[in-house]
């Protein structure tokens, strides 16, 4: 499966990533992929990734431009985004 991931604000700045295309083998893991499982997978990249995605900072997720919770399911072709709580207005 192929997904696109976007990072914003503090995450983008600290991870030095604004967007990436991620390809995963179509196995049982991919079929059961959720926001939380994707965070855990990305967190294995380094300590910084671990801290940013599973640390003290609250990270919100979106799938295809909709805010979702950690248990939301990700499927092939989805656009996923990770960002801190919003501070506009």
């Amino acid at each position, binding site marked *: 499966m192929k997904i696109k991931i*976007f990072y*914003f*604000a*503090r995450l983008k700045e600290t991870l030095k990533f604004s967007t990436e295309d991620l390809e995963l083998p179509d196995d049982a893991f991919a079929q059961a992929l959720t926001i939380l499982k994707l965070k855990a997978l990305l967190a294995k990249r380094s300590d910084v990734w671990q801290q940013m995605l599973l640390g003290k900072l*609250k990270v919100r997720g*979106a799938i295809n*431009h*909709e*805010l979702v919770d950690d248990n939301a399911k990700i499927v092939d072709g989805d656009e996923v*985004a990770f*960002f*801190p*709580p*919003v*501070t*506009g*207005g």
Partner: protein
Amino acid sequence: MTVRVQTEDFDVGFELNQLRHVRKDTGAIVSFVGQVRDLNDGDTVTRLTLEHYPGMTEKALEGIINQAKTRWNFFDALIIHRVGSLKPTDQIVLVAVSGAHRVEAFKACEFIMDFLKTEAPFWKKEVTQDGERWLEAKQSDDLARERWAKTIA
């Protein structure tokens, strides 16, 4: 409904005048303007940078107006939100709601701002004398949104 995310400034007088003429049975327009403060958490702020998630932002703002529409019978709503680099006293956001009477317009305007603050993907970073820092989300903003869950329009 109009939703605009832009780097340019906006003219509140012009925008409200446009809204006045959408329908001749409009009797009330309520507007809110948010602007950059030169002070935050006791520190002097010299610049503010606003980042957003293109695509999702517009959809989220339209969704907020649609949610407001299910609760109040207003005529039209406008949201303009700026992004990019701003300085103290610069305008950040305009929310304007028109209706037959003031009550619906007041409530819808406040509802839209409370949801914009907590659900629209914008992030502020400010420059102070000590350097740059990302703003933290405020619990008071979450509480402001939560109270709508308990209120019946």
